[in-house]
């Protein structure tokens, strides 16, 4: 199966600022890819180049087998980060206009499709309202419909969940999954790593314009296994240092995640876990699974400590917001 997107050495600069530097990427058809990275990492610029809204200064890029997205725009659904609607336009008119721009020539098919989608997202009553009368979340659903109305082969969603409440977030996540299940290649970018973790099967991490990670979730977890056991003591007088006597336990640490026993590289993780549960007064213990955030911080820490802190703060702020 050919790749939906193929990039080789793609580079983009804005004056002196290098936004994207030499990205190589191959996204197979039918996959669900997550672009993650902090704000300003180069995700949106990469996506805009894929969409031929911006053009690379150097490198090769093909989308759905064509040299540029311009040639296959009607097969792509795109929800940009900076999204909006025609405020004064009625919802139905807006969707029909976008459908026509996406090459839907059959008027009856277009109307039918609009009605079906409005029903799906429970906005059928909003069809004749002006876009400005809708809430931000409702507008976002309308924008999502405008991306999928023409049954694209490739769906690119830039920060699709921002500004949504948990209910609508779940609805949108289900709709995205549904699109992917039906064979649509989905790429979405987010700076909220948990979202990517929960929905994607493949992650591309971008930092300072460079691709720093490109792997499946499973492979990332395996290669970035923190080799530690999280445990919860039964009482406050628990002697943490006692755990270091277990073979394979290197040290004990406490953080916002809780108490953690860090293991030697060659330690038997399951053996250590069993020893902790059997021999000590604890109410819970588990092997720590690496989060994308951990992985990301680990990677950027390689660059410089200051960077890692900046990124951690940025990620924490974004999650909180």
């Amino acid at each position, binding site marked *: 199966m050919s790749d939906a997107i193929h990039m080789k050495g793609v580079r983009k600069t804005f004056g002196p600022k290098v936004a994207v530097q030499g990205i190589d990427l191959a996204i197979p058809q039918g996959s669900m890819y997550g672009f993650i990275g902090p704000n300003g990492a180069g995700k949106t610029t990469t996506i805009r180049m894929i969409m*031929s*809204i911006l053009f690379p200064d150097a490198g090769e890029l093909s989308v759905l087998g064509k040299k540029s997205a*311009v040639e296959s*725009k009607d097969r*792509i659904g795109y929800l940009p980060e*900076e999204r909006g609607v025609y*405020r004064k336009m009625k919802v139905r008119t807006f969707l029909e206009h976008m459908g026509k721009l996406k*090459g839907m020539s059959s008027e009856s098919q277009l109307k039918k499709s609009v009605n079906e989608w409005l029903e799906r997202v429970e906005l059928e009553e909003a069809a004749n309202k002006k876009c400005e009368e809708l809430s931000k979340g409702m507008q976002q659903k309308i924008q999502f419909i405008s991306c999928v109305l023409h049954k694209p082969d490739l769906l690119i969603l830039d920060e699709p969940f921002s500004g949504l409440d948990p209910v609508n977030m779940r609805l949108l996540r289900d709709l995205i999954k549904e699109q992917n299940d039906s064979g649509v290649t989905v790429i979405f970018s987010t700076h909220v790593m948990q979202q990517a973790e929960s929905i994607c099967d493949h992650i591309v991490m971008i930092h300072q314009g460079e691709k720093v990670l490109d792997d499946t979730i499973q492979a990332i977890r395996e290669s970035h296994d923190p080799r530690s056991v999280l445990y919860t003591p039964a009482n406050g007088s628990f002697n943490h240092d006692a755990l270091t006597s277990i073979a394979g336990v290197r040290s004990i640490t406490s953080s916002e995640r809780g108490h953690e026993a860090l293991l030697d590289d060659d330690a038997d993780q399951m053996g250590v876990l069993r020893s902790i549960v059997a021999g000590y007064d604890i109410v819970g213990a588990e092997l720590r699974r690496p989060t994308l955030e951990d992985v990301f911080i680990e990677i950027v820490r390689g660059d410089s400590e200051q960077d890692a802190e900046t990124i951690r703060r940025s990620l924490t702020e974004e999650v909180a917001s």
Partner: protein
Amino acid sequence: MNKILHVAYREFASTALTKGFIFGALVLPAIFAVLMPLIGFLFDNAKAPADVGRVAIIDRSQMLAPMLDERLQPEALAAARRGSTQQLTEQMKDAQNAVQNPDQEGEDATQQLDTIAGAVDTLLGETPQFSIDILDTDANLEEAQQRLRQESDDETQRTLVVLEIDNNAVVRNEGELDYGSYTLFARPKTDPRTTGTIERTVERAIKDLRYDLAGMDKEELRRITRVERRQVQEVTEKGTRSSKQAMQFILPGAVLVLLFMGVMTGGQYLLTTTVEEKSSRVVEVLLSAVSPMELMFGKIVGQMIVGLSLTLIYTSLGLVALFAFALTDFLEWLDLFYMVIFFLIAYVMIASFMAAIGSAVNEMREAQSLMAPVMMGLIFAFYLSFPALLSPSAPWAVALSMIPPFSPFTMLVRIASTEPPPTWQIWLSILIGIIAAYASVWFAAKVFRVGLLMYGKPPNFRTLIKWIRMA
């Protein structure tokens, strides 16, 4: 192409198919069209109530008072008015020619226009009902003026006007060449038609007396001094026709205004919709479906149809008027073709800049400083074309008609003038215009592509140049 048309249609529909636009472009002129005759009708029928009151005369010449007493009586005024009406038609005809040739006999023309104005005044309003008070020839003017300050419940007792006639108004003082005149003192806010009636009556009486004393036959004198002025006849291949020289200024002037209006309207709307699309952040959604070029061309075409529609609506109204007044002789159909061509050139040039500016700014307020040079260029082009109405073949007019953005305006004026330029000049101007329009689109396309996705600090011209290099 299909997408450009979709964008163009949306642009046209969102601008022209709105209540505001239809009201402004169609309903408002229609209301005016209905109102104008109505206003005319009301003017014709709005006869002011007859002025009733007294006219005090201090005749220092001691010769005019009896004549004025007679001529200012209601019956005499009514008779004079009937006479004026008869003269009006002929005078109008003469004066029209005089206005069309202002340099030739300007003084005469002004005099005749005064006569017409007087006649029109006479036609309006009921005949005044004056009572005449002849005061002593040596009466004190101050005391006489005091009458104008006195109020009275009985209108017939109220003095409307005090007329003081100079002692030498009819007979010159010894050793002087010039005659004296008269002064009219009136209450504040006296109807000008009333004072006008008195003035004309007094002037005519003075002249008649002067003629009599000079032993001249006043009727014969009028016949001698009046020369019927006939319209200039233009000799064409088909024969001769009456020249409507005023049309030679009105037509190019109207074409100029229409062109300016169409270009301005389309350009302004283009700017507004582009800024709206950018500020509402819908632009990137659009860019996922169409390329920046398709979007820009679609918008330019859409607003071009708006501007062209508006221009054609008003042109059609003008044509209807020309047909109605049987003035189609003055219409060269080829000129209409040129009008459309030059509209397109002027519009594309201005619209490109408007699109570029619209894409570069975040809101309308920021557009003002960038728009200023474009607007100045357009306004200069518009106003600099007016002198070409009088000198269509002057070297500067020829030069301006070749240099964009002046060329569409100046060339159209020259084409519609009495001295149309040779065809090669017109087509050279069109060629230069097309090249300039292409360059404008090229410039706009570069800025548009980069500017649409740029938010934050509004750019200056240096930034725009940087964007062009970047794109």
